[in-house]
């Protein structure tokens, strides 16, 4: 992770290639009588880093959870890297192994060592030999800056370390897309930076990322595009500069005035 502590501007800005990685068309989602998503249409290019903002209950978390079908969508289309997400189980398993996810509460497996947390899916899903999986885990732990913790259990690590293990675990599947659902919200302030640093490095390496977050500094610095959700609608999207300096919609202005 050497270098990740420097500011992101020292990285060559990886420009999105324009090849669409995620395409959503009019995606809707209901929880009983409550409509969480009211028709979301957007497209995210390969290598693009998108930060999703919005007040709580706006549907932003639900939206990224539909992208690997942790929440099945009720209407519209979701196409991930050319494969449509639907009831077809083969598509689902394929997509889930291509899309990594990092959760707010880490969700590491507490009964497995850090290394086993990372090697489990590559061995069981990708059928990687054990030695290769271990080598991969060691490499990823170095990348997220905690190489010495492989044999510990998650409960023995700090929150920031756990979240970095969770990122390594997701990366071990060599995903094409990484989803982050409020990755720093459960962390103590002094641990937020170490996680954001890892994410910066990941963004600089050209990963396609969708990040639900309230970290405005990160959004301004790393995101290619911001998307603003409110009441289940995609209200506004734009570059960080457009978004923060010249918001068009009233709801966006209101939200920004509340959090900045």
């Amino acid at each position, binding site marked *: 992770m050497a270098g990740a502590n420097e500011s992101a501007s020292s990285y060559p800005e990886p420009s999105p290639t324009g090849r669409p990685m995620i395409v959503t068309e009019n995606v809707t989602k209901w929880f009983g009588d409550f409509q969480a998503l009211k028709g979301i249409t957007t497209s995210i290019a390969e290598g693009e880093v998108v930060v999703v903002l919005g007040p709580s209950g706006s549907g932003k978390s639900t939206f990224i959870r539909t992208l*690997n079908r*942790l929440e099945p969508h009720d209407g519209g289309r979701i196409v991930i890297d050319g494969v449509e997400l639907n009831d077809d189980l083969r598509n689902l*398993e394929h997509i*889930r*192994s291509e*899309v*990594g*996810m990092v*959760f707010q*509460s880490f*969700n*590491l*497996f*507490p*009964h497995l*060592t850090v290394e086993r947390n990372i090697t*489990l*899916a590559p061995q*069981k*899903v990708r059928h990687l030999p054990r030695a290769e999986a271990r080598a991969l885990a060691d490499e990823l732990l170095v990348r997220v800056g905690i190489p010495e913790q492989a044999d*510990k*259990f*998650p*409960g*023995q690590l700090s929150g920031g370390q756990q979240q970095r293990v*969770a990122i390594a*675990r*997701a990366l071990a*599947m060599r995903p094409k897309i990484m989803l982050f659902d409020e990755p720093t919200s459960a962390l103590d302030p002094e641990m937020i930076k170490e996680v954001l640093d890892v994410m910066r490095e990941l963004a600089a390496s050209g990963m396609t990322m969708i990040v639900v977050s309230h970290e405005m500094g990160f959004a301004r610095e790393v995101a290619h595009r911001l998307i603003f959700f409110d009441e289940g609608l995609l209200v506004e999207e734009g570059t960080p500069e457009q978004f923060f300096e010249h918001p068009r919609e009233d709801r966006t202005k209101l939200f920004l005035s509340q959090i900045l």
Partner: protein
Amino acid sequence: MTTQSLTRPVARLTFARAGRWVRKNLFSSWLNSLLTVVTFAVIAWVGFSVIRFVLVSADWTVVEANRRLLFIGRFPKAEEWRIWPALWAVMAVGGAAYGRWAPFARRDLPVIALGLLFVFAFFAEGTAALLVGVGVLLAAAAYLGGRFVARDERRAAVASRLILIAGALLLPVTVVLFTVASGVRTTLWGGLLLNIMLASIGIAGGFALGVPLALARASTMPVIRVTATTYIELVRAGPLIAWLFLARFVLPDFLPPIGPIADLHIVARAMLVLAGFTAAYVAEVVRGGLQSLPHGQEEAAQALGLSGFQTTWLIVLPQALRAVIPALVSQFISLWKDTTLVFGLSLLELLGASEAAIAQQRFIGRQAEVLLFAGFVFWLVSLTMSRLSQRIERSLGVGER
């Protein structure tokens, strides 16, 4: 401990310190002093009475004379050789497991001491002593072997697998050993041996059946869920003794007329009932464990692309089972004591054998000795199970919190 000894000299237990401890903990107030005195008086009196009874007034010849009956019931003398290899196998696997996973701890000393006392009190002479001695030596050797392999990670991993496989084979091998080549009909199994066989099969079967039942009850498929729920609620609605009676008088009419199934021995039917009964309770205990898991665990597994089966097998079940070890073991201890209920099927398990011994003309009035003996055996086994569960809990709890 080490850090402490670096900063100050190791504290010695002196009379002054002991005195302070006693004053602070036992005589801190007027009421506390009174309670201390009364409690100690009661303990002393009970202890004295028990020791006096055991060593002075009791006449243990009734147990001595009925040793066979109490331990193996009507198991034919000519077939006794079938028991020893099974016992040795159990002792060897137990010793190896103890050495591999749980280096000797002082807290285990009472259980081991009681076990050895038990062995020496009843198998001190003749061929039996020799044969038990072989078992003890095997267990000790296996323990040392277990300690030895535990030092090397790779050998320990191989040994773990071997010990677990051997442990899983113990029960089937024992059953085969008892019955193969015109062996002993199950109806002749008796005494402590029968309790152990019934409980082992009840535990193994109850667990093997109970876990899938719990998963079935948590299933999203209605047919499976309703079937499992119906079974569990039905079984729990009746007392075990009622199910045993049903197995004796009603079950034969319901068995399909296919070869050996048609005329299941009464013991096999008892095993079936014990396993089926325990399964219902195990299922509910395990369901509690499944519900205690945060939903995020399943989501994380799914997000990594693990299949539903892999998620259950690798992520959900290990955590759920670990969370319910205490409740499971208490279910198993309760099953262990419930094996005495097979007297309803006129089977001569330990308690039934005790009653038979009491009924003998020459031992009239010796109930206390026999029942105390039976009670001691049940207690010793329960204590062992409880210690075992604490050990398993602790070694699985590594890294939690």
